[in-house]
């Protein structure tokens, strides 16, 4: 059982990193608690696989340390770290049967054969591989191969964490949810720490209790899927989570409120104070398409806008409107009507987020400190 701690960790593939751009992972401190189901979410090239490989020991970090339960692991090889890793492409030993594949790690550890048999059958039971145990592994479908890769991690008693590196990439969409559910079951049953790397927010939020969102080598936010959605603390989180992502508008603070081009959004006192505290950083206003209100009637605070186009996605619609020179996306439920001629936008003030230099402005008053 392990709590994984990253202490002052940074990594550069270059021999002597000089600029911050040389770093694949920027200095970070992070703790994955024992037994948690975590997702490491981020776009391609943000360093999430590097981070995973550092945890598993396949990559040695250039700075800082990795601790398992408080013990420094930097110089411990992957095979001695008590972790299992599942890769993007299923790794199976072609020449062996499914049974032998599952037994492989145990046999490498010289476990007696009767025990091997017991373990393999137990794991095969959970992964529903029972019926194909005696088949050769190389002719199986991708999802079964991926289950075998997972199974090899599960047969070992000493495994305390399983790391997944985009394990469902090569799986048929209709089988993905099945495997994801299997992962959940395994997590509940074995009380293992699981870290799941993916670039798919849906995958991350269905699998994980907590998501670490990575961007340019940094974990920009660590929280529940809901926190990431409602309270993104970096513009990138707003942009990356949600479909479509958050509307982000550059603003200037004036006496009337937040000015963006010709348009001014009214602010309340609290928001004014918030923005003032940011000083002269570059400011942005963010609001999720789900929270923007679009109607055909104007009210005190509404702003006139022009409709550009509507995408009907079946269960919801995405309406693109122009507010001054800014394009805003609005997500409407299927039953909501898109205004025909005059359209007005409202930004409910509780959903307005303000960013200074891309980071969420927080004060003690709001209580938001995620």
């Amino acid at each position, binding site marked *: 059982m392990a709590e994984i701690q990253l202490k002052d960790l940074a990594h550069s593939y270059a021999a002597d990193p000089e600029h911050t751009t040389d770093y694949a992972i920027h200095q970070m401190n992070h703790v994955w608690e024992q037994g948690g189901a975590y997702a490491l979410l981020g776009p391609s090239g943000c360093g999430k696989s590097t981070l995973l*490989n550092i945890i*598993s020991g*396949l990559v040695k970090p250039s700075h800082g340390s990795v601790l398992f339960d408080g013990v420094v692991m930097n110089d411990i*090889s*992957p*095979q001695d770290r008590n*972790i*299992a*890793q599942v*890769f*993007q*492409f299923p*790794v199976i*030993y*072609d*020449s*062996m049967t499914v049974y032998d594949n599952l037994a*492989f*790690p145990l046999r*490498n*550890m010289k476990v007696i054969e009767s025990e091997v048999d017991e373990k393999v059958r137990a794991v095969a039971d959970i992964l529903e591989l029972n019926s194909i145990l005696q*088949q*050769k592994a*190389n*002719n199986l479908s991708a999802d079964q191969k991926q289950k075998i*890769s997972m199974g*090899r*991690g599960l047969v070992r008693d000493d495994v305390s964490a399983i790391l997944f590196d985009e394990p469902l990439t090569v799986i048929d969409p209709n089988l993905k949810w099945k495997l994801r559910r299997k992962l959940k079951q395994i997590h509940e049953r074995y009380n293992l720490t699981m870290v799941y790397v993916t670039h798919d927010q849906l995958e991350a939020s269905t699998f994980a209790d907590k998501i670490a969102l990575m961007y340019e080598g940094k974990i920009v936010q660590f929280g529940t899927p809901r926190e990431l959605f409602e309270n993104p603390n970096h513009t990138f989180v707003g942009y990356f989570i949600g479909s479509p992502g958050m509307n982000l508008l550059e603003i200037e603070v004036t006496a009337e409120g937040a000015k963006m081009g010709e348009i001014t959004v009214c602010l309340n006192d609290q928001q004014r104070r918030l923005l003032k505290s940011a000083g002269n950083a570059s400011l942005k206003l963010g609001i999720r398409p789900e929270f923007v209100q679009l109607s055909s009637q104007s009210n005190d605070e509404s702003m006139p806008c022009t409709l550009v186009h509507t995408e009907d996605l079946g269960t919801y619609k995405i309406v693109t409107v122009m507010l001054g020179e800014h394009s805003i996306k609005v997500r409407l439920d299927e039953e909501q009507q898109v205004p025909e001629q005059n359209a007005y936008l409202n930004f409910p003030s509780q959903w307005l987020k303000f960013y200074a230099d891309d980071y969420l402005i927080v004060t003690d008053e709001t209580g938001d400190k995620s």
Partner: protein
Amino acid sequence: MNKIQNNRAWFLVLPVFILVAFSAIIPLMTVVNYSVQDIFDQNNAYFVGVEWYRDVLQDPRLQDSLLRQFMYSGSVLAIEIPLGIAVALMMPTRGAMASLSLILLAIPLLIPWNVVGTIWQIFARADIGLLGYAINGMGIEYNYATNATDAWLTVVLMDVWHWTSLIALLCYSGLRAIPDAYYQAAKIDRASDWAIFKYIQLPKLKGVLIIGVLLRFMDSFMIYTEPFVLTGGGPGNSTTFLSQTLTKMAIGQFDIGPAAAFSMIYFLIVLLVSWLFFTTISQLDKNKT
């Protein structure tokens, strides 16, 4: 379903048929033609049926060289395949050293057969050759021109020198095609180096090894130039392989009939062994699944 039958469609096969006829069937048929006749001159040819075949198969000279040939191909394969795999495993995977070793390995493959023969002919000579002289200098008596065992060793060594590179290069490319994830997974599964070799590398090399074995078998089974230049088949007949026996028969003694029969048998052996090898391997594969 109404299928239109038009036999003129057969004409479409004609170009291929003509090509194959000229490249393979017609030349082969002339050999078949000679192998079943006894020809004295243009007007005197007698059909003899399978007589030449019977003669050839009972000829002790040929039986001996056939046996020698199998021993030769067998030992060449037994050395070159494991050695080639070992070399490929030890080669650096990236950087300047990788390119350098690739070039060094490719050099023997670029040298023409008779030059290889000449190189070794001189290199291994007991009087002036570096290798021969050095071995004798160490107190081991060695002379490939007079001692049959020495001649054998030299011929095999020459082939190993010439062709191990081919296996090594094939395996090298096969090894490079294994994704890193396999090694990483094996590491995490605590596999030993031997287990990695046995369960990851070797299975992944199977494809290239089948090709390598087939190529080396066919090539070594038909070898002519190198031993001919090196030992001329001697001492005695100790390094006279099939193709040399055949050449002596066809061109030296002008026994066209038996030589043609022999050619056919030779051809069929190569075909049969290759086919047996290939089908056995693919059959093994199917049975296991």
